[in-house]
């Protein structure tokens, strides 16, 4: 999987119109510089040899060096490692928010199926899902930072206060999905025979729902956490740009505008690895939750 991801990432650079050597040198490079780059990266070789060279450098941890003036010749790996913790904290808090909203809402609306509460929750999920995260971010910013002036506009200077809006923006869309899944899973479990049996034995309703029902209903919701990570990777790119959050997502967008291709390549590779790890986690959790699924 990771090998295929590197292939796609490399293919992208290859497909970029124009001379790739020109894309890899600083703006005021001489003809000799360009020739050097061409030889170093083997651009005069056939495609498959070029890809091989790229992989070889990658295996040695060499992602190339940045070509924009601000960070000229800095190792791409170093730049990415600096930004990585920021993205990780955003994603971790965002995930927590989306589950702490989604699971209770889903359970409540399943327990009161077709009630006003349930309808309200369903409308909320529809709207929250349809809302593009960048617009939600701008709206939250407009309300809490511009009009009310409670929270900082963006960046990280405000400490904990600066992380509130970005994580809510990131978490809300996924909270909608989690709510829907939790609701349908809870509804399904409630129709099971063993729940009816527990009720008929006279167990208190609270115990039936929280001890027996929820425990089974929550499994399918938890197992998709790995897939949610993939969703959050895409969201992080947008949210970091809206709130000028110095993570990998902002880095990739900035590098695209500055035509810093080695950095773009490195970032996309890291994001792809996130997605792949997310899928791996999903597979493992699935096997843990359901012993009938065997790994291998």
């Amino acid at each position: 999987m990771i090998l295929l991801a590197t292939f796609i990432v490399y293919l992208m650079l290859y497909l970029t119109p124009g001379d790739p050597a020109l894309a890899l040198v600083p703006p005021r490079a001489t003809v000799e510089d360009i020739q050097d780059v061409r030889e170093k990266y083997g651009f005069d070789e056939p495609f498959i040899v070029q890809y091989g060279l790229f992989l070889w450098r990658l295996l040695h941890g060499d992602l190339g060096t940045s070509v924009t003036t601000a960070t000229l010749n800095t190792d791409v790996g170093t730049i990415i490692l600096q930004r990585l913790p920021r993205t990780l904290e955003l994603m971790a808090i965002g995930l927590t928010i989306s589950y702490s909203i989604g699971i209770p809402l889903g359970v409540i609306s399943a327990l009161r199926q077709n009630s006003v509460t349930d309808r309200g929750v369903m409308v909320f999920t529809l709207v929250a899902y349809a809302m593009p995260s960048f617009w939600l971010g701008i709206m939250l910013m407009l309300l809490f930072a511009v009009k009310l002036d409670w929270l900082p506009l963006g960046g990280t200077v405000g400490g904990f206060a600066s992380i509130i809006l970005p994580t809510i923006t990131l978490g809300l869309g996924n909270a909608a999905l989690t709510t829907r899944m939790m609701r349908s899973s809870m509804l399904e479990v409630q129709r099971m025979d063993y729940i009816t049996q527990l009720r008929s034995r006279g167990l208190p309703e609270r115990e039936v729902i929280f001890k027996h029902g929820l425990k089974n209903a929550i499994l399918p919701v938890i197992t998709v956490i790995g897939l949610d990570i993939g969703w959050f990777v895409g969201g992080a790119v947008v949210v970091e740009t809206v709130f000028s959050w110095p993570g990998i997502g902002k880095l990739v967008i900035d590098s695209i505008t500055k035509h810093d291709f080695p950095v773009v390549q490195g970032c996309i590779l890291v994001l792809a690895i996130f997605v792949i790890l997310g899928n791996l986690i999903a597979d493992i959790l699935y096997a843990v939750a359901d012993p009938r699924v065997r790994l291998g």
Partner: protein
Amino acid sequence: MILRKRLNSLLLSWKTAGGVRQTIVEIISRGSRNAMVVIGATIIVTMVALAILAPVLPMADPTPAELKVADRLLPPSSDHWFGTDNIGQDVFSRVIWGTRVSLMVASLAIFFSLLLGVVLGLTAGYFGGAVDYIIAGTIDLFWTFPAFLLALAFAAALGPSLANVILAISISYWAGFGRLMRGQALSIRERQFVEASRALGARNGRIMFTHILPNCTAPLIVWASIGVADAITIESSLSFLGAGTPPSTPSWGNMLNLGMPFIGEAWWIAIFPGIVLLITVLGFNLLGDGLRDVLDPRMKGMRR
């Protein structure tokens, strides 16, 4: 001869039961009784009408050749319903023209990914074996990655232009259609009417496109509707990030991108394009969800 007649009648009954025309009639008659479908369809029809009528509607030029300093950042008024932006362009007319761009990009992108997904998925599911192995592997690879991330990567590599956005979204989104089509083809090819058709001497191509494909009309329509909603979101996100529709063409995403630095003084630049975007996406999602509930109750509540 008698055998052939019986086979023909068997075939005919299956075709009328699952034909495209029948499915569409059924969708309309059952869908019109579902509130979600009706609301969704109303929103979509309104947006499409606005998009088509944009050039003849009596409103300001979205990209006037002459810009006046006095027109900058005007709040909403009877002259400018949604106010004006930072260089004095009318936000209302740009939102309406943006509808045109967003709907066109999204529907073309979904059309191409549908085409790619259907052809590849059908081929894989119908023939099986080595062909299936290769195609199914490719589908899974594309399916693993979130469409937005893939589209961003492709759009970044190709550079911002309308055609490139459509291409980027198509390449990123087709796997869903491919998966759906492959699964359907795998099960339908075992059915009796396919066997009957083969016994009558029909070629593979004919079986694939006249017998298997029409039986998949309903799920394909559902997926395409939700797909258009996703594609609109992807297009606007890409444009917002500066990797999608070029700034010269008004689109909801790049209006928000250009308006970002001014939201402190002019909230209207950011709010209106977003509301229209939200309503449109909601419309396609409602239509898709509603149709799915109507056509296949077993799929209720499923997503992803």
